[in-house]
């Protein structure tokens, strides 16, 4: 960990992390009288795996919702790729190159796995209405080109055998994987994962961890994830933000965070005697 000022650093396993990709400055989010997030600042750097952890109700998901455009904070600034982002609708954020998965799976149950992943490429499909209606020219060409890209994601996540299965029939672990595939198909610069391993068994968690590392490694995708499994978080992430009751109580490498007394108190509780 060196030379944070110029933007880059080298991780423990020797990966070069670049400059700031996303920066959140003094974010405050209120729902009526409830302060969900209070004056939080942190950054996400190019190529890193950034984790947000904290007890239930700490405001982690709200933070992710701010990044993906569902919530607009009352105070504070969101910067992405060196530009300040005004209030945006989620679909506009998606077009900037930010993709996400949800804590509760949000797949399109009426569609096949293939179609679900194809929806991840919607922003790349530009054929006009007439071309689509007649299925002639651009529409067919881009369908085939995007299908090729989607097949690469399918290969990458090893879900070839369920390609044509309706999503509603899949078991939970596979659904999570399909949701990741849909996000990956968009070729995002920043990938937000909201509890990617919630409700999985050890084996599924190992698979998912491997996929997350591979995505980061092979595509250079910057990842910001929320996770409750501390073992996973400490192993996967380069830097960790710790939140509690809407405040930031820790920020740093996993080992720094682990040694932070405030973090230990928040997680283990303080002795009441």
């Amino acid at each position, binding site marked *: 960990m060196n030379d944070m000022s110029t933007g880059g650093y080298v991780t423990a396993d020797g990966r070069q992390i670049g400059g700031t990709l996303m920066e959140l400055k003094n974010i405050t989010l209120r729902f009526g009288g409830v302060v969900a997030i209070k004056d939080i600042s942190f950054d996400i750097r190019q190529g890193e795996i950034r984790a947000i952890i904290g007890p239930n109700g700490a405001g982690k998901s709200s933070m992710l919702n701010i990044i993906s455009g569902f919530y607009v904070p009352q105070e504070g600034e969101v910067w992405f790729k060196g530009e300040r982002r005004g209030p945006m609708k*989620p679909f506009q954020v*998606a077009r900037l190159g930010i*993709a996400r998965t*949800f804590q509760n799976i949000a797949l399109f149950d009426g569609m096949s796995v293939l179609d679900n992943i194809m929806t991840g490429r*919607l*922003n790349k499909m530009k054929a006009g209405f007439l071309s689509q209606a007649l299925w002639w020219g651009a529409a067919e060409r881009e369908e085939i080109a995007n*299908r090729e890209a989607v097949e690469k994601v399918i290969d990458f996540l090893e879900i070839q055998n369920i390609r044509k299965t309706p999503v509603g029939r899949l078991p939970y672990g596979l659904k999570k994987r399909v949701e990741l595939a849909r996000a990956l198909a968009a070729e995002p610069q920043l990938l937000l994962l909201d509890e990617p391993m919630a409700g999985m068994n050890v084996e599924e968690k190992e698979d998912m961890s491997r996929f997350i590392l591979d995505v980061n490694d092979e595509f250079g995708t910057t990842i910001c994830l929320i996770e409750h499994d501390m073992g996973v978080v400490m192993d996967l992430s380069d830097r960790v933000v710790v939140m509690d009751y809407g405040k930031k109580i820790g920020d740093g490498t996993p080992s720094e965070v682990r040694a932070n007394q405030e973090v230990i108190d928040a997680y283990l509780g303080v002795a009441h005697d």
Partner: protein
Amino acid sequence: MIYREAGDFKTGYRADGQTFPIRLDRWGYYAALAVAFGIIPFVINNYWANAVLVPFLIYAIAALGLNILTGYAGQVSLGTGGFMAVGAYAVYKLMTSFPEVSILIHILLAGGITAAVGVLFGLPSLRIKGFYLAVATLAAQFFLVWLFNKVPWFYNYSASGQINAPTRTVMDIAVTGPTASAPAKYLVCLVFAFALAWLARNLTRGSLGRKWMAIRDMDIAAEIIGVDPLRAKLSAFAVSSFFIGIAGALLFAVYLGAAEVGEAFGINKSFLVLFMIIIGGLGSIFGSFAGAAFLVVLPVLLKNVFVGGMGWPTDLAAHIELMIVGLLIMVFLIVEPHGLARLWSLAKEKLRLWPFPH
């Protein structure tokens, strides 16, 4: 044993994405087209055209339209009758104002006008969903019927308040008006039904169709992958209303010949088309045709059996017929809530594996 995918290898994504991936299906489709275009026009008589085939084709178009909106894009609508009325009155005004222009162009324009009206009444869908949207479209239904009753300009100030289709020709063959022959009426409807079904298939297989289905299945997730809900919903309303407008125009100009708005395009029509897509299968092109066939053919069949076969009085037969159709709708919804299209695909899946159970 013939109905198999085995040996029918797909070597490209184009082949994999075709509409009928199984060879026998493809042949069946071509055979159906050959019969519909090549044989039926030569053997059709007035009874078959007026009682079965023409209404079947027209309602199939309407069902396709509603299926795009409700089955694919997930926006419930009870305004189908009203939108069909827009198509009918649009084509009537165009026919009488510009008699020299081809009726086919008028029908397409009527669809376009209906699309614009549909977008207007689709605006509430941006804020409200489900039952509440259904009520909002119900308002469209009542408003449109009221409008066409109330403003004499729409029915050219005729004393009866009815609209009557004048005779119009395509290539010197009358397709509307009292002199139109059965094959001519049938062929016009068939061409529209075929072309629109093909358009519907193309639109639903590409990016627009995926946007609609994404909005239907989970609108939050759709937004997060970059679907603009405004454009997706309004485009569904536009395309759907275009189809329904054409169905309304054909129903009035080709099939009925004369229409009074409350009677021909009342709330009953909205429900009829909605039943068609529910029975046929939501989100299925085949289902639109199957549902239309079911609800058009079944009453005719029952009537023939009761009146023709058993010699019952017509009024008794009509009532029994209503009861049986209603009962069958309920049975269907309980046994197979996903409609005839699902039954059909289950049957095909079984057939693919036959004689093995798995």
